């Protein structure tokens, strides 16, 4: 049992599995993306209050979802690299950071472009926005920290500990719209109650979230494969 799990997380096995998976994931990405874009921009009706301006939701929510989701993945990878010293965990952690930074930045940019016409301001120091900005600073800090420690053996562990300490921000972001009075609307999608959005608007949103998530997995695989082959000198796997 343990040897099976161990073979699953070995870099070599990972390399071969991702090679067969990549074309399928690229196909799935373009299918979900095109359905999400057409459904969101053309087929979904305009919102009763926000008109066509609400269509920013189809990129804002996936970006915000991934900014939190990637951090959760990083925290899990940090635990595996700290506790079991998994090489793959440390690699996933390192290559997720730039992608997570990008999605956090995009969530903030698209959010302020949505806030300007609806709230009348690009930025306001409210709970959801401020905690998301703190997440961006966390990502930037981790990015700088790991680039400073890249050649030190203790560097990976230090970055992993920093990631775990920063994880406290994730539930704060999620619950900020319930704990404080805020301009930001509450959650549209929740796990256990029906969504507060009509089905023709919901389906493209789920497709876009799926597309962005597949994009993250694809990019992570691309970066990890390059790292394993070119930087760590495993050319004979090709």
């Amino acid at each position, binding site marked *: 049992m343990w040897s099976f799990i161990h073979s699953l997380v070995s870099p070599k096995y990972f390399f071969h599995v991702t090679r067969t998976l990549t074309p399928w994931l690229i196909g799935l990405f373009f299918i979900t993306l095109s359905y999400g874009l057409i459904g969101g921009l053309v087929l979904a009706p305009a919102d009763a209050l926000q008109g066509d*301006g609400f269509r920013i939701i189809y990129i804002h929510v996936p970006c915000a979802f991934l900014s939190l989701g990637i951090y959760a993945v990083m925290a899990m990878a940090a635990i595996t690299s700290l506790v079991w010293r998994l090489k793959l965990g440390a690699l996933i952690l390192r290559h997720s950071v730039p992608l997570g930074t*990008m999605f956090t930045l995009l969530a903030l940019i*698209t959010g302020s472009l949505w806030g300007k016409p609806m709230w009348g301001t690009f930025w306001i120091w409210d709970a959801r926005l401020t905690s998301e900005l703190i997440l961006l600073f966390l990502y930037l800090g981790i990015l700088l920290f790991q680039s400073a420690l890249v050649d030190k053996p203790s560097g990976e562990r230090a970055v992993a500990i920093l990631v775990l300490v920063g994880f406290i921000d994730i539930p704060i972001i999620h619950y900020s719209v319930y704990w404080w009075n805020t301009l930001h609307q509450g959650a549209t999608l929740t796990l256990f109650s029906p969504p507060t959005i009509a089905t023709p608007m919901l389906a493209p949103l789920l497709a876009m979230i799926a597309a962005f998530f597949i994009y993250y997995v694809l990019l992570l695989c691309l970066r990890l494969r390059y790292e394993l082959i070119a930087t760590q000198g495993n050319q004979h796997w090709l």
Partner: protein
Amino acid sequence: MLIALKNFLYMGGYAFYVWSAYGIVFFFLALQWIMPWRQWRRWSKQSAHEQHS
């Protein structure tokens, strides 16, 4: 047809916000895709070159 396209691009008056948001997101997504891909291409070209020489 043209009017429908114009209406679509007009986005009910929110054209600037909607299209700039979409533009920025897809610019960054493309950038993050192209950077590692080009790195990979450069490396494979280089290693092929090394094998021949």
